[in-house]
């Protein structure tokens, strides 16, 4: 079975088109007959493959996501959870609950990628693992330390917890496996499933990437933008986005020390951000009472909405949940025009402060972590109705889980595959402008030049002029001449860097303080 996702389209052709992944090559102008023949055959095969895939999708992915539909003057956002509860079956109604745990203070949540298990972490050191199908509590531990974040690793067996000083990795049984001291006091954790990387941002605004398979530290960057606890991974390309107090959002990859993109999203601090599963949309909320939806292909705002959000999350089907205070708002665009409208609202009991909203994968359920425990509400149309057992299987057996672990480890992507546009992998690199040669290269070049200078043969001159001393002198001269341009270049570079250093303090200094800069002789 191939990967089948997304809802069932109306037309077979559309599906086929989807599975063809773009236009077929135009072979009209191709002169190479052999290549033409080969490509034509290939195209034919692709077409067949797409057709069968479309057929399979038609027959094997019959479930369609539902959603609330308003009748007459009804408005979908006026429909309460209670009214939904009256209409649904028992198994679904099990997903509406509030767990009240007032002591161990605001809770944060994380689901496994198949949505079967949930890890909940209370601020005051309470960790709980729950099987969401049976609602059994699998393990509950008290770390007796501040817990800031919890995140599942590749399956439900392991999870990482950001504690007071360091992040730790526990297994399902609550055994501490690792203490990741290099990360420091981590505020937010994220796990990159395909790359097996644990990303963290600590109190000092340092971003760490650690490979959880071999334990290697892949990247360690200073953001230089201050403390932040707003971090999210783009599921499409694995780029980590950070929201900063300066209103900027920076996007990082583990192989570059500077952000790939730095965008000014809000005039005030960014309070939260979220990515659409297809990776093209980003939602940010700022402290200035605005929620913005961005198109990441053009880096432009699509929509600006008033409202505050402490936490944002996109569901698998693209619904956007925003939580602030004790109020949760769900936005949706069922029209597909990327115009998000209010879809549902939910108010918690007075005094509950929502800390985190998180849609449960493959279920129409929104998990809410708040100051008094955690809750779960139903949001029709939020989850993907058809799951692909190769990608994530909510009904996974332990054997399947083991099998999948091995497979995913074999399919692990190296960290350099994280880039803004992963479709670029395997294409022809665009010709680049010539970069500066490295120091080593310059040295090697100089060596080579000197060697050639040494090896040159002199003309045999007449008796008086052919003295060995003179010849040695001449040779020396030649070597000098060969060296000269390199040395000159070096000096120039040095000068330039010095100049930069010299000019920097002046410009950095506020105007009021500039008068105190030591005046140098002109």
């Amino acid at each position, binding site marked *: 079975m*191939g990967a089948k996702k997304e809802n069932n389209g109306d037309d077979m052709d559309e599906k086929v088109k989807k599975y063809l992944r773009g236009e077929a090559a135009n072979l009209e102008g191709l002169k190479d007959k052999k290549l033409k023949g080969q490509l034509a055959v290939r195209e034919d095969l692709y077409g067949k493959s797409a057709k069968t895939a479309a057929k399979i999708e038609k027959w094997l992915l019959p479930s369609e996501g539902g959603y609330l539909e308003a009748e007459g003057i009804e408005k979908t956002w006026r429909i309460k959870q209670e009214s939904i509860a009256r209409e649904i079956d028992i198994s679904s109604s099990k997903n509406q609950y509030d767990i009240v745990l007032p002591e161990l203070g605001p809770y944060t949540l994380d689901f496994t990628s198949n949505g079967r298990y949930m890890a909940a972490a209370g601020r005051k050191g309470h960790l709980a693992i729950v099987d969401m199908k049976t609602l059994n509590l699998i393990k509950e531990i008290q770390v007796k330390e501040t817990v800031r974040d919890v995140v599942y690793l590749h399956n439900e067996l392991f999870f990482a917890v950001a504690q007071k000083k360091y992040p730790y990795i526990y297994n399902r049984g609550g055994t501490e496996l690792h203490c990741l001291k290099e990360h420091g006091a981590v505020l937010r954790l994220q796990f990159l499933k395909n790359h097996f990387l644990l990303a963290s941002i600590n109190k000092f605004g340092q971003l760490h990437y650690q490979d959880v398979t071999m334990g290697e530290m892949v990247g360690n960057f200073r953001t230089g933008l201050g403390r932040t606890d707003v971090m999210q991974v783009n599921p499409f390309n694995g780029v980590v986005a950070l929201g900063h107090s300066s209103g900027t959002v920076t996007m990082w990859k583990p192989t570059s020390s500077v952000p*790939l993109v730095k965008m000014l*999203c809000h*005039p*005030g601090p960014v309070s939260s951000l979220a990515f659409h599963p297809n990776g093209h949309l980003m939602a940010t909320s700022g402290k200035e009472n605005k929620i913005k939806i961005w198109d990441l292909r053009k880096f432009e705002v699509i929509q600006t909405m008033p409202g505050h959000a402490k936490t944002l999350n996109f569901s698998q089907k693209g619904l956007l949940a925003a939580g602030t205070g004790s109020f949760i708002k769900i936005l949706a665009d069922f029209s597909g025009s990327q115009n998000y409208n209010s879809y549902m609202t939910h108010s918690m009991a007075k005094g509950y402060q929502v800390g985190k909203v998180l849609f449960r994968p493959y279920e129409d359920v929104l998990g809410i972590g708040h100051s008094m425990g955690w809750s779960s509400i139903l949001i029709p149309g939020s989850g993907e109705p058809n799951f692909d057992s190769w990608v994530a299987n909510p009904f996974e057996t332990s054997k399947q889980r083991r099998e999948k672990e091995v497979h995913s480890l074999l399919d692990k992507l190296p960290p350099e595959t994280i880039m803004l546009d992963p479709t*670029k992998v395997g294409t022809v690199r665009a010709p680049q402008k010539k*970069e500066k040669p490295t120091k080593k290269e310059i040295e090697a070049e100089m060596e080579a030049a000197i060697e050639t200078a040494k090896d040159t043969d002199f003309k045999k001159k007449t008796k008086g002029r052919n003295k060995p001393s003179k010849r040695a002198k001449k040779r020396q001269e030649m070597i000098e001449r060969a060296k000269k341009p390199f040395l000159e270049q070096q000096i120039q570079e040095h000068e330039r860097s010095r100049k930069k250093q010299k000019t920097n303090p002046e410009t950095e200094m506020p105007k009021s303080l500039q008068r105190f800069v030591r005046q140098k002789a002109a």
Partner: protein
Amino acid sequence: MAVKKRKERAFGGESGNSKKFKKYSNSKGPMKKNKNDTRKKGKGPRLPSALRTELDRLDPKIASDSDDGIDLDVGNDVYEYEEEVPQEESRKNRRFDPVENYDYELPEDFEDENVPSDDEDDDGDFGVGGNKGSRNDDVDASDGDEEEDDERHLRMLQGVTGMSTDAFGGKKKRNSVVISEAHPESEYNPTRDVLEGDSHITLQDLLDPIQGKAGYSKLRKRVQHMDRKSTSVQAPLPKVDREKLERMAVYEHSKKDITKWEHLVKRNREAPTVFFGGDVDLGFSTVGAIASEFEPRTEFEKKIASLVYDDKVMEAHKADGSKLLELNKISEEDYMKHRDHVAKMRSLLFRHEMKQKRIKKIKSKTYHRLKNKDKLKVESAEMLMDPEAAKEQARKQEFKRAEERLTLKHKNKSKWARRILERGLNAQDEGTRAALAEQLHQHALLTRKINTVKDSSSSSDSSSDDDDEGSNEDRASELLEKAKEKTLKVLEDDEELPNSGVLSLPFMVRGLKKRREEAIEEAKLALQEYEQLEGTNDAENSKPATASGRRVFGRANNEVPDSNKKTKTDNKMKMDNYYGNSDSEDDLEAKANVNIEGCKRNDVEKDVGPNYDRKEAADVSIFKNFDDNGDPGSKTTYEVAIFASDSWRKMKSENGVDKNAKKLQQVKEAIVHNKDMEEGEEDSDSEREQMVDGILSSAPKESYELPSQSELIRHAFAGDDVEEEFEKDKQEILNEENPEPDKPVLLPGWGQWTHVQQKKGLPWWMLKEHEDAKRKREESLKKRKDAQLKHVIISEKVDKKAEKLQTKSLPYPFTSKELFEQSMRMPIGSESNPETAIRSLNRPEVVKKPGVIIKPIKFVEMHHHEKSEDYKRSGQKQKKNKSKGASGKNKKQSN
């Protein structure tokens, strides 16, 4: 010794060969051919010569077919019994002194002289051999005591031929004269007797003595037959040519032989996958197949078989079978009918074929001339009927014309024509002159034809012949024009009333007036109608004009005055204009036309092209001005404006390198200039907008000028100036990634010696360098992805680690990037494809089971209709195989 030698010669030149060979093989310079001959002689069983002669006589063909050597052998064998091998030579014992030794002492040239003659002996046939023999005699005639020798020879001849001695004697006498020749004899230096002739022994001479004996008539007949048949043999080609021809023939042959493999090779090449040992035949495997091969052996088995294969049982089975077959039955009548029909069709086809063959073979000039004429007639008829054909014809004519113009084939350029002209036309006869004139006429016809077409289609004169088929609409419009003119005439006519006669009577006059008024009204109505019609017609007119293409356009210059006619409407003018613009060949002329007309009547049409140009030029100049003013020197004057527009940009403008500020300046200046310009037309404005492009995109930012309430709040909220910081950040990163060029500085003290130097400032080349670097930076900044996005910084740094994920260069067979990327777009792994497709997507080029012996390619005849099929078909075939294989595998798996 010499005597002995002569003796042996006397036995007959032609007969002495074998011995001579022996001798030569001892001697110094034997020829290769001789060797060959000796070898040949050694071959095969040696029959008694008598028997062989007999055989020979019975079947001379064998003799003639066989090699020369054998031929000679036969000649030799005739005399075998008469020949006496000298005892010294037979070497039976050693009683005699070794006589041959003397031969070594013979002079070299003597030997040499003989060699070629020997050679000829081998080549030549019987007669020649005889000739040689006599020649040898010549050579030997120098010896003193040849008389008796000759006599003996004569006697021998007499004995052989049975003729009287004088037949040989006379010749002998003549030959007794010895002429020593300075050069060796060869085909270039024939010997004397060849030149003198008449020394031959004809066949007749040989035949005569056996007249009346048994077998004579048979022999004679055969000889006569041979005589009749014999033709002169051509000299063989030189060896090089012969071999070349041979090679050519061989090449042709082998080419034909090899090309028959082509389709097989092609199929294999085009197949996406080549299968080897795909269908290993394991023989029958079903129970039924095995059972069918069963043969009863034991008695019991036989008994059973006899029961099973009982007649009754078989019959019953048969009856059942025949029932089934009945459905397949065709009635005899039907079958006959079908067969007859097929036969008829076949015979018709055959007849037709034969007819065509015969017609094709006809070489008669008159026939072809008539045929061509007929063809032309048919074509012209078709041309009248079918516009498509007409178009085609016109195209052909055009092509011919072009060809004629290109080659000037009929313009007396040929060698023939030039020669005639050189000699003068008057010197020629009627026919040649006519031919020449005809040629010229042809040329004129070919080149002129198109002109006439052009004229008729483009000119609206009534005088034109209008035999062109494409100008139907034109004709219609002309008809309308005529009608109009006539009606107008009718309208004008009404002043003249008859003054005398019956018609001048008052009631008649009244009646006339009435009728005229009616007529006038009618005419007016008609006129209206015409005008309407014309309007539509003109609209239509323009379309076919474009469609008819080349033949219509290319109005000659001399038509311009024609177009001044008053009857022409403005529409018409436009049409002409249109032609002129669309013309490709006579572009210049057409343009000239347009210009002329533009000058003549400005009201009718606009001279668009030049105007446009002028405007553009103006624009360009304006923009040059902008650029000039965009110098750093003039910056200060605009700062105020920027301050006014939005306050938060203050800092930037202070930096002095701000791009946006500059842009703003430019835009503003542009607006000022616009106001100054008198011709503020929409055209030019829009043009300007396009040209500004990037600059205009920053122009809307001026709307920031009015800070709204929310804006103010925002500003207040963002206590620390976030945007400004970001701006600064961006600037920094830009500077880092595209560093700003250093300001040109002289070394301190340089260039500051005098006031003049100081006034001059920096040298021009430094400034220029700086400017260049600046411009370069600007360009690279513009090229950045975030150039248009104020709020975004996209890092341009190259990730070296990620570089390996992309190819540096295009992989080999691809030549275009798009094609490569499109061909790579589909993943072929099992994760993203259905199970059924993965196999075919990942199949290797060669599929071979281990242990299968790959047999050499086998020739398979390809049918004619199959030859034209392309790779797709073969691909399908392959795929069929594949699917079969796949399904088979699946079955196995399921089992």
